[in-house]
């Protein structure tokens, strides 16, 4: 129960960072997807069965906080979490030493997919801008590096029990 409360607090703070701290810091230009990055990093360390509910909750809270259609971010996070977890287990299992780079690759891929999904589901059209997308990926990668280091340092707090990629 204590662990669940901790995870809920982490998601709540990530949402507040995304809608209040970063828009203030960057004047609303490029705001990193803190919650998405957190879900991807979790998915690259935990099994989908352990993370899907948190991806759903995180997405729903973000949808509510950004006054958008409820379900868009939740849908995107669930799908990305599943894909990150699937890719990690199927293809990256042998590369134990490269988990950091793998996590960054998943964040970059997840950012693109999230962008496309959330844009499409918001008004069923895709407003694509390569420059904005690149900036968004860079922003998310910077956040991912910070979060990766924090998660590695405080594994237990973030609910990570194993340090290396492994499939039980």
């Amino acid at each position, binding site marked *: 129960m204590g662990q669940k409360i901790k995870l809920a607090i982490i998601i709540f703070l990530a949402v507040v960072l995304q809608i209040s701290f970063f828009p203030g810091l960057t004047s609303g230009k490029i705001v990193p997807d803190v919650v998405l990055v957190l879900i991807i990093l979790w998915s690259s360390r935990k099994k989908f069965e352990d993370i899907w509910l948190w991806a759903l909750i995180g997405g729903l809270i973000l949808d509510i906080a*950004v006054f958008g259609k409820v379900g868009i971010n939740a849908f995107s996070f669930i*799908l990305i979490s599943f894909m990150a977890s699937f890719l990690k287990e199927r293809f990256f299992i042998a590369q134990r030493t490269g988990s950091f780079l793998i996590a960054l690759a998943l964040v970059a891929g997840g950012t693109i997919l999230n962008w496309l999904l959330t844009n499409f589901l918001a008004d069923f059209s895709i407003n694509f801008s390569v420059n904005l997308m690149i900036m968004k990926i860079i922003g998310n990668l910077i956040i991912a590096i910070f979060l990766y280091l924090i998660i590695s340092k405080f594994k237990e707090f973030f609910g990570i029990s194993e340090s290396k990629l492994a499939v039980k």
Partner: protein
Amino acid sequence: MPKKTLTSKIIKLILAIAICLLLIFLNPRNFFNPVRGTFLKISYPFQKTFYLAGQKTHNFFSLLFSIGDYKKNNEKLIKENNELSAKLADAQDQKRENEELRKQLELSPRGKYNLEPSLVIAQDPRGSGSWIVIDKGKADGIAEGMPVIVFDGILVGKISEVYSNSSKVFLLSDSGSSTNVSDVETSAKGILTGEYGLGLKLGMVEQTDIIKSGDDIVTSGLGGLMPKGLLVGKIDQVSNSSDKLFQEAVVRPKVKYSDLNVVFAIKGVK
């Protein structure tokens, strides 16, 4: 991977996706308003602190990056200071003239409205300049539809959703925003719409009306709670609509919507 685990994984995925798709397509906006209200109530102190912390960090880094330019700027400022001293006398006359014009054009003067000063505590993270959240709500007398301005009567948006301690402000640059406006100099009327956070567009201006680059645009006071004479921006570029029936123009906003710190909700006329 055991087949059972894979099946359970797929079931969870399908279940979660089904819930999300149902919510997206049914889009029960009002259903989630109480949840949103509770979220805003809980997150209010965090949002306020985090937004201010973000801005202070931004200002700190801006200051660091600008140190190199200080010397150059200082020389420039000395030169400008001399020029400004010469213009000061002229400005006194212009001030008097400005007050006269304000009276004639019915632009909103200071002190005319009952204003509620509010801090911005969150904004659209998609960077589309669609909305902001302010730290005043129902408890402070804020109501839906109230115009939101900055300092001297410059309109930035209107209240779209009100919660106990905070409110969502729909900015003029949002693609769904629509405001009745008029040209200060020619009195030509039109409708101002947002351009997906990129700027403002003046449309539905009759071909017989005159609008030109550099003209100021103010609210016309037609429809809703919007008072007459709130400054919006300046006409930048005039063109014809695709069907040639109307004129349209790009309007340059008077303020940068992404840099808003303090805004004022107009609660009524004094």
